[in-house]
């Protein structure tokens, strides 16, 4: 399993591996929003939590179809399915690799972009925490969506449509946590709900995704 994680990370960091795709998108969005909305600090501060969370979510969505599609194309997925590693483990590891290359950098970069968007000072800590707690769910739900659409050519659109409704709770509670913190309110409740979604996704979705993969490999 460690070998699979190392391979996926190595592939992501090598040329053409897609690392930085989501991060680049996130940066561009956060730089463009003040230009589009206007420089009024009050307005920017008001929409900052929502923009940052929507940006992180879309950045995650960008690289989802790579999770299984590339392995399916070159035959690795068939070979992994016949390997000693259970397919559930393959799914979990690949979602973890996706999170390390996408969600984690987003959580770390978000405070810098928070400055660009004039996020209120108390919101910064919760911004990092909420993204760190919420993005694993985005990767795991995304891996499920990718597993459902793995055999399809140009399955990206269908996958986005399948995955976006499942992303809603994470977005709502994540953005809510940052908004409340920025207003100086207690953000514990949305953060707990966010953790709950992540824990549930990580516990259940590897099994659902592995089941979908087995059907798609037939």
């Amino acid at each position, binding site marked *: 399993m460690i*070998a699979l994680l190392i391979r996926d990370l190595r592939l992501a960091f*090598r040329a053409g591996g897609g690392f930085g795709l989501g991060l680049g998108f996130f940066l561009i969005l956060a730089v463009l929003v003040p230009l589009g909305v206007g420089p009024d600090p009050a307005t920017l501060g008001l929409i900052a939590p929502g923009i940052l969370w929507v940006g992180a979510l879309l950045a995650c969505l960008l690289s989802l179809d790579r999770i299984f599609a590339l392995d399916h194309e070159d*035959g*690795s997925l*068939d070979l992994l399915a*016949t390997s*000693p590693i259970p397919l559930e483990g393959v799914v979990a590891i690949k979602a973890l690799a996706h999170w390390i290359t996408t969600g984690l950098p987003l959580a770390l970069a978000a405070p810098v972009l928070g400055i660009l968007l004039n996020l209120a000072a108390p919101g910064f800590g919760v911004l990092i925490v909420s993204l760190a707690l919420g993005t694993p769910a985005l990767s795991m739900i995304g891996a499920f969506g990718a597993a459902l659409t793995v055999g399809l050519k140009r399955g990206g659109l269908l996958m986005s449509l399948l995955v976006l409704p499942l992303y809603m709770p994470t977005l709502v509670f994540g953005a809510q946590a940052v908004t409340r913190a920025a207003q100086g309110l207690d953000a514990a409740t949305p953060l707990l709900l966010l953790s709950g979604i992540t824990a549930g996704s990580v516990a259940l979705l590897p099994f659902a995704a592995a089941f979908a993969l087995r059907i798609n*490999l037939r």
Partner: protein
Amino acid sequence: MELRVTELACARGGLPLIEGLSFAVGPGEALVLRGPNGSGKTTLLRTLAGLQPALDGEISCPPEQMAYAAHADGLKSTLSVRENLGFWAAIHGVSDIEPALEAMNLRDLADRQAQHLSAGQKRRLGLARLIVTGRWLWVLDEPTVSLDAASVALFAGVVRAHLATGGAALLATHIDLGLPEARVLDLGPYKAEIPADLGFGGFDGENGGAFL
């Protein structure tokens, strides 16, 4: 350890291809599958490898004992030969890949990225994976595609060495591998009858009128 297949039936995309197939492969044996394109060789091998369920019949050997190799080699173009092979070795809990590199004559290419290999070299790397799986039954779908004559002979030697150590091989191939000891199984007689109720006649059947 023996692969015993009894009255197996399998289908591709819902269309039955093979039925009533029985055979056995024991340690030290090689079985070559023959049959025209579309006769179900790939489907049979995928069914044996556990990638798709059988319609009917029994397979005595669990997929965990088989090393499956298909048309695609499962190589990552940005990883080197050593990294590619090392990954599959690690997945199968094997640490030493040097014998496999040596056997498929890949040692000189070990540090080259897979994207810079020729088709035949990629194939050799894909076949080297079989050695590092450490599994006794090799299930091979067209293993010699894009190999030159020398590489085919090299591969035949690898298969023979595998058989000599108590392994077994099931190969779907159109060319002569140079394995005189291998038995040949023609899939022709096991072609499945397509049931009429599958409706491949489209709307020409008795229900057709309802749509007019």
